[in-house]
């Protein structure tokens, strides 16, 4: 447990460093859903930065991931449905865990506090419902 907490804190520091540098140097909010949706459709100015960011994201994850650990993914039909809901939800809410729960809260945005409270509560409730219904 303590081992996991230390890793989470260390990972959080790296994530904060990433969001901080992207703001201080590039003057941009590091929201994954925002960067992703900017690449769907006609590419805006600075799309190359988003592409470079995602390239780094994939390499960074690959370098530090535990190779012995395989991912436990839910079955594909549920994966598809969940992905659809996540895409719709973050587009409507204009942000996800990174944009609202990290960057938004770090700059004291009321909108982000509301968004974070609602998606955390809704996710926790969903996990309970899935257990009750028996997946």
């Amino acid at each position, binding site marked *: 447990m303590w081992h996991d907490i230390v890793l989470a804190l260390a990972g959080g520091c790296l994530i904060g460093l990433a969001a901080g540098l992207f703001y201080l140097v590039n003057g941009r909010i590091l929201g994954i859903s925002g960067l992703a949706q900017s690449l769907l459709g006609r590419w805006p100015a600075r799309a190359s930065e988003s592409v470079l960011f995602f390239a780094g994201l994939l390499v960074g994850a690959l370098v*530090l991931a535990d190779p012995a650990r395989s991912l436990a993914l839910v079955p594909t039909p549920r994966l598809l449905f969940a992905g659809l809901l996540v895409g719709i939800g973050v587009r409507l809410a204009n942000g996800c865990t990174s944009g609202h729960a990290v960057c938004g809260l770090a700059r004291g945005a009321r*909108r*982000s506090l509301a968004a974070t409270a*609602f998606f955390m509560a809704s996710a926790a409730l969903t996990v309970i419902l899935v257990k009750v219904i028996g997946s």
Partner: protein
Amino acid sequence: MRSVVAVVAGLLFGAGLALSGMVDPAKVLGFLDITGAWDPSLGGVMAAAIPMTALFYYLGRRRGVSLSGSPLPEPPSKVIDARLIGGSIIFGIGWGLAGLCPGPAIADLALDGRVLPFVVAMAVGMILVKAIRRIPIIH
């Protein structure tokens, strides 16, 4: 400089997701499962990331302009509307069903190709909202 920072931010972000365990949907579901065998460790990610980010935001605001010379983002809007809340609830349901939010889902493409259906469906969801945004209640 901007391009280098974009790559470095990606590397740091991906490394942070992998190191913390955010890339593992089972661990995320354990964090969300507050009535079961709750695993609160992932709370450490926000506990560290928010103050770290806030430090840079403070430095940026004091400077007034980004280091590359481009303007800093406008202060956030204060409007809390049905679109924000409804969207957050829908996002939370998807997050709770699969244990994946956008960042880890994309990072997982590098670790396990089986996550691809989620990422494709997520892109479809985003495009779908854009396509029907003419409906007044959603826009």
